[in-house]
């Protein structure tokens, strides 16, 4: 078994129109920029995939990564907790124009719904959001005298995540707070694609230090020295590059 895929294009080939795609990252940290841009390349070349539902904590920043996907018109709906950023114009304009849907989810509920999707838990109760607009229409129940909201699992067709080290069996480690949503998204997607800064042979990761066991990962593609979204935005980058 060898889960390595040699090209970014091949890694994102399975994503089709209308799919739900989880994308790792919290702001720029952990954003799999190269995978996202490979998907944009495919869309620009073929017109597909479009009408995507994207699950991410945020809704893009500047004009790269998820913001660039939205700018290209690939995204029909965002599921996120905080669709704001230093430069949220791309999402904001489309949202206010009614061109993109938003499902706003409290951050911890978003994380738990994703984890539930990966763990085979179709629904759970949380105190979060009880009595607020974000719980409207959801079942509520009382346990031990306290009120809770019932929330459903979230699953995806594909997860695109960024990891630090990956072995051929798909075992992954992460880099600092770039870990964030990646381990749980890897669990919750039917197919998980990880870009890794360093691919190693099995045995190259200490079994104690594996964060995402390979069972949750379908393929890895090595991207040494990946772009950092924050750096791109500080340089006012656009994807695709704006030519004069």
């Amino acid at each position, binding site marked *: *078994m060898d889960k390595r895929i040699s090209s970014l294009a091949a890694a994102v080939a399975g994503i089709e129109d209308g799919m739900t795609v989880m994308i790792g990252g919290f702001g720029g940290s952990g954003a799999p920029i190269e995978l996202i841009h490979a998907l944009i390349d495919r869309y620009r070349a073929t017109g597909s995939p479009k009408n995507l539902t994207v699950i991410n904590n945020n809704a893009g920043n500047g004009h790269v990564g998820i913001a660039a996907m939205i700018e290209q018109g690939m995204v029909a709906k965002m599921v996120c907790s905080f669709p704001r950023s230093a430069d949220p114009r791309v999402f904001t304009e489309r949202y206010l124009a009614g061109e993109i849907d938003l499902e706003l989810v409290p951050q911890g509920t978003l994380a738990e719904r994703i984890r539930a999707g990966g763990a085979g838990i179709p629904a759970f109760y949380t105190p979060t959001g009880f009595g607020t607009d974000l719980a409207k229409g959801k079942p509520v129940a009382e346990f031990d005298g306290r009120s809770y909201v019932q929330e459903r699992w979230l699953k995806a067709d594909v997860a695109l995540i960024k990891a630090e080290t990956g*072995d051929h*069996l798909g*075992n992954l480690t992460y880099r600092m707070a770039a870990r964030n949503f990646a381990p749980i998204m890897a*669990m919750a997607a039917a197919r998980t694609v990880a870009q890794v800064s360093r691919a190693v042979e099995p045995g190259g990761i200490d*079994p*104690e230090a*594996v964060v995402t066991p*390979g*069972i949750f990962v379908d393929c890895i593609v090595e991207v040494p020295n990946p772009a950092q979204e924050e750096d791109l935005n500080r340089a006012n980058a656009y994807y695709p590059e704006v030519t004069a």
Partner: protein
Amino acid sequence: MTAKLTNAQIAWRAAQDIQDGAYVNLGIGFPEMVARFQPEGRQAVFHTENGILGFGEAPAPGQEDWDLINAGKKAVTIKPGTAFFHHADSFAMVRGGHLDVAILGAYQVAQNGDLANWSTGPKGVPAVGGAMDLVHGAKRVAVITDHVTKDGKPKLVAACTLPLTGVGCVTRVYTSLAVVDIVDGCFVLREKLAALSLDDLQSLTGAPLHLDGAVADLTCPEV
């Protein structure tokens, strides 16, 4: 009666259906034997409930490390690519549908896929372990078992009389006499020992055996 398959042969037959790279959980006891018979060129990744993925064979006697055991509390080894994780993550793998196949023992399997393999009734101390999770988690739940009980009663039955492990969960049964699929609430015979007549097999089975195309000979090497 025709010579039936040994337990090792039943395990061998079950192992032939495991694909290269499959994630597999083997129930404690008899099913653990399946790991010995992986076909040449295929390598499954074995999961154990207590938090190891991709473990290796038993160590040599005297080389056991008792922090490195499987769900049956037997010593195993690590291999390149092994991963450790805690129990909630382990059962997220199980319940979340990430295992390709679980192979379990059985007291009874019903024609609707119900499985009874954890309790023989109200006597003694009940113990369930991870079986109830496995039967609702793995993409494919297979059973390996003798075709009949020690006193000759069918283990493939119209309806389980023993306490259930799971409802409608088993899709294939490898027995000492046959390979039987469970399709739409029926036993469908896929393979049987060549020397055994269909009538004789039916007489040892507690519910009708349906045919869906040819029945292959169940052949196993001496193992």
